[in-house]
C-alpha cells in the first residue's frame, strides 16, 4: 500500500491532506486550512480498483446521499397529488378508478405505484439506498477522523498553526513564568492539557465530533426496526367492526381470541351536568356538541381446543374491560384501541300485517336484520313469508332491487302475505317509506310498526414487537443529536518556535464562543490574543 511520509516522521495513508501527527499540509491547500475530517484521507477517494470499491465509493459520496434524499422528497410530494389507495372507495378497482378520475395522468400515477407509495418497490428501494449511503458515508469518515484525532501530536508544524483561522504570533517576555497561569485557566475551563517540550495542546469536547455518527447509528437501528415489521408475526395492524351483543373473532390473532361487545357508550358534555367552571366553554360550543367519552365495554375470550376456522368456538372468558380512547385493552401483547363508532344501526324492524281497507291488524312480525327468519306464523291462518331481503337496498342499473353491502343501512324486503281469504298469498315489496305491489292491488299490507337500533364500535387490533427497537433507535438518534449540537470540540495550541510564540485555536462550531473564551484565558497575560484571520482579510 502506498503511504506518504511526512517530514516529522509520521507515516500517513495515501490521500491525506494534513499530516495526522503534525498537521503539515501534504498537498497544495488554500491559505486557511479546511479542517473538516482533520484533513484525513477519506478511504473512498483513495482506492478504486474492484467493482466492490466502485460501488462503495459511489455510496460514500455525500452528494449521492443528498440526491437520494431529494429524489425521495420529490416522490413523496408527488404521492400527495392524488389520493392514496386507502382513501379511494374500497369497492372500485384502483386500476380503473385512477384513470377514470384523473385521465392519463391518473393512469401513470397508478402504473408507477404512486397510488400506494410507501409500498411501491422503488420507493422502498430509495429508502434502503439512503440507509446504505448513511452506513458507508459514516464508516468512510469516522474511521479516518478517529485516526487523525488519535494520532495528533502536541508539537505542530508551523504552517499548520499559522493557517488556522484563529492565530497570533508574538514575542512573549518571561514565557516560562506566564505559561502556568494560562494553563491553569485552561484547566479550570475544562480543557485537557498535553505538554511537550514546553508546547501546549489544550483540548475539550472531542466526543462532540462523534455526535453525527452516533446519530446515524440511531437512524440505522430505526430502519432495521421498520424493516422487521415485514417479518410475519412481528407486527399486526388490523381493524374490526363489532355490534353491541355480537361475539366476533379478533382478526390478526389466528383465531385464538374472540371479543364480545357488551355495550358502546357515547357521552357528551352537557350544561347541567358539568361543574360551574365549564359552563362558559360548553356555551361556546353548544351544550351536547362536544364529545366526552367513547367507550366500548367488552369481554375477551380465548378459544380452547383445536382451532378449525368456521367451527362454533369453545370460549373461555379471559377478562372484562372498558376500552376508551387511549385506554386500550391489552392482553398477550395485543392491544385493542377504540377508533370509530356508528350510532343507531338498525337491528330489527317490526311490521303489522294490516288490511288496507279497514286498517285492522292481524299480528306483528319482528324481522332481525342480520339473520331474518324465512317464515313468520301469526296464527289463525295468517302468516308472512320473506322471499328476499336487501339489507342496503338500491335499484341497480338493470332496474332490479339489489344491495350495496351486507350492512342494514336501508333494508328492503319482499314479503308474501297469507290470509284465510288469500291462501295463495300476495307479494309486497316493502322498503323504508316505499311499498310496491308488483302483481296488482293487494288486500293486505305490511305496515311499519317500529324499529330497534344498536350501536356499532370499531376497534384497531395492534401487536408490535418492533416498538422497542424503534424506541432504542430514536433514543440513540437523540443522544447523537444532543452530543453534536450542545458541545463543541475546541483546541488551543501554544507553541514556541525560536523566539516567537505562536497561538492557534480551532473549534468545529461556535467560533464566537471560542473567541469569548480565549479573551478570558489570555486577559492580563503577556500573550497576544489570537486574531480571526477571516476578519483580517476582509
Amino acid at each position, binding site marked *: *500500500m502506498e503511504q506518504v511520509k511526512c517530514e516529522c516522521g509520521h507515516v500517513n495513508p495515501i490521500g491525506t491532506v494534513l499530516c495526522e501527527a503534525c498537521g503539515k499540509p501534504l498537498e497544495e491547500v488554500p491559505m486557511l486550512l479546511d479542517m473538516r475530517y482533520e484533513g484525513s484521507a477519506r*478511504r473512498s477517494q483513495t*482506492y478504486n480498483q*474492484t467493482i*466492490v*470499491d466502485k*460501488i*462503495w465509493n459511489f455510496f460514500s459520496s455525500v452528494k449521492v446521499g443528498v440526491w437520494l434524499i431529494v429524489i425521495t422528497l420529490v416522490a413523496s410530494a408527488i404521492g400527495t397529488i392524488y389520493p392514496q389507495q386507502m382513501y379511494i372507495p*374500497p*369497492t372500485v*378497482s384502483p386500476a380503473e378508478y385512477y384513470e377514470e378520475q384523473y385521465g392519463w395522468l391518473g393512469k401513470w400515477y397508478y402504473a408507477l405505484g404512486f397510488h400506494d407509495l410507501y*409500498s*411501491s*418497490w422503488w420507493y*422502498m*428501494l430509495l429508502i*434502503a439506498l439512503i*440507509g*446504505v449511503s448513511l*452506513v*458507508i458515508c459514516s*464508516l468512510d469518515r469516522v474511521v479516518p477522523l478517529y485516526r487523525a484525532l488519535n494520532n495528533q501530536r502536541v508539537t505542530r508544524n508551523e504552517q499548520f498553526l499559522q493557517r488556522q483561522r484563529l492565530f497570533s504570533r508574538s514575542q512573549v517576555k518571561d514565557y516560562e513564568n506566564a505559561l502556568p497561569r494560562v494553563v491553569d485557566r485552561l484547566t479550570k475551563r475544562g480543557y485537557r492539557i498535553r505538554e511537550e517540550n514546553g508546547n501546549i495542546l489544550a483540548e475539550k469536547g472531542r466526543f462532540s465530533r462523534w455526535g453525527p455518527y452516533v446519530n446515524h447509528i440511531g437512524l440505522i437501528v430505526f430502519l*432495521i426496526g421498520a*424493516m422487521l415489521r*415485514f*417479518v*410475519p408475526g412481528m407486527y399486526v395492524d388490523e381493524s374490526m367492526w363489532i355490534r353491541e351483543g355480537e*361475539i*366476533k*373473532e379478533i*382478526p*390478526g390473532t*389466528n*383465531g385464538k381470541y374472540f371479543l364480545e361487545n357488551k355495550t358502546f357508550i357515547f357521552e357528551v358534555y352537557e350544561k347541567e351536568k358539568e361543574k360551574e367552571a365549564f359552563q362558559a366553554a360548553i356555551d361556546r360550543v353548544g351544550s351536547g356538541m362536544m364529545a366526552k367519552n367513547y367507550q366500548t365495554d367488552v369481554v375477551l375470550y380465548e378459544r380452547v381446543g383445536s382451532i*378449525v*376456522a*368456521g*367451527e362454533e*368456538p369453545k370460549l373461555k372468558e379471559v377478562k372484562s374491560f372498558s376500552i376508551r380512547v387511549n385506554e386500550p385493552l391489552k392482553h398477550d401483547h395485543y392491544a385493542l384501541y377504540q377508533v370509530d363508532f356508528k350510532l343507531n344501526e338498525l337491528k330489527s324492524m317490526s311490521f303489522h300485517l294490516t288490511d288496507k281497507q279497514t286498517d285492522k291488524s292481524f299480528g306483528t312480525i319482528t324481522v332481525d*336484520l*342480520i*339473520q*331474518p327468519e*324465512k317464515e313468520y306464523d301469526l296464527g289463525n291462518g295468517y302468516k308472512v313469508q*320473506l*322471499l*328476499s*331481503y*336487501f*339489507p*342496503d337496498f338500491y335499484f341497480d342499473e338493470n332496474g332490479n332491487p*339489489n*344491495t*350495496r*353491502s*351486507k350492512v342494514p343501512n336501508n333494508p328492503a324486503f319482499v314479503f308474501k302475505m297469507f290470509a284465510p281469504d288469500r291462501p295463495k298469498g300476495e307479494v309486497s315489496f316493502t322498503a323504508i317509506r316505499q311499498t310496491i305491489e308488483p302483481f296488482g292491488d293487494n288486500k293486505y299490507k305490511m305496515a311499519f310498526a317500529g324499529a330497534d337500533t344498536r350501536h356499532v364500535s370499531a376497534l384497531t387490533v395492534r401487536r408490535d414487537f418492533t416498538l422497542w427497537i424503534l424506541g432504542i433507535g430514536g433514543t440513540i438518534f437523540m443522544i447523537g443529536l444532543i452530543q453534536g449540537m450542545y458541545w463543541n470540540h475546541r483546541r488551543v495550541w501554544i507553541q514556541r518556535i525560536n523566539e516567537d510564540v505562536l497561538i492557534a485555536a480551532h473549534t468545529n462550531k461556535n467560533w464566537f464562543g471560542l473567541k469569548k473564551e480565549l479573551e478570558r484565558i489570555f486577559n492580563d497575560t503577556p500573550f497576544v490574543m489570537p486574531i480571526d484571520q477571516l476578519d483580517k482579510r476582509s
Partner: protein
Amino acid sequence: MKEKRFWLRTVILAIMLAAIGYTIYSNVFVEKKTIQVGDSAPDFVLTDLNGNKIQLSDYRGKGVFLNFWGTWCKPCEKEMPYINSQYNVYKNEGVEVIAVNAGEAKVTVQTFVDRFQLTFPVVIDQQDQVMNAYNIGPLPATFLIDKEGKIVDIITGMMTEEDVKKYMERIQP
C-alpha cells in the same frame, strides 16, 4: 491490508443487500403476509344452505376452487354463472367448488343462489372466521387448492369464463 479491506467492504455490502432484498421481496412480491401461494390451505368447517357441514379437509384428493363472494359485489355476480357452468364440466374431473359467502343473511344468499341456479355448495361465513384465516380483503377472491391441500394460486378480482376454465384445469387432479 488491501485484501482485508476488500472483504470487509464486500461483507458489509452483502449484508445490506440481503436486508434490502428481503424487505422488498416480502413486501412487494408476496401477496399477503399470513397466507401465500405454496402454503397448505387452512382447514375450515361451515354449513351450507341445506344444513350440511362442509369441511375442506374432506376434499383431499380433489382440486378445490375456493371462491369468496358477496351478493352486493358486482364482479362476484358476473363471475358466478361462469363458475357454475365450468363446475358442471369439471366436477366429473375431480374439481370441486366451494363458494364462501361473506356473512350475509341466509335469505339473501338463498335468493341469489336460486336466481343463478348454483349447483355447487354455498356456505356462509357468519363470524368472518374463514375470511380472517384466508386474510380476505376486497371481494371476489379465489384460492386454487390442489389435491394435496396446497394453495396453487390466489386470484383477486374478476375472472372471465376463460380464466375460470384455465384455473380449474390447473387444479384438476
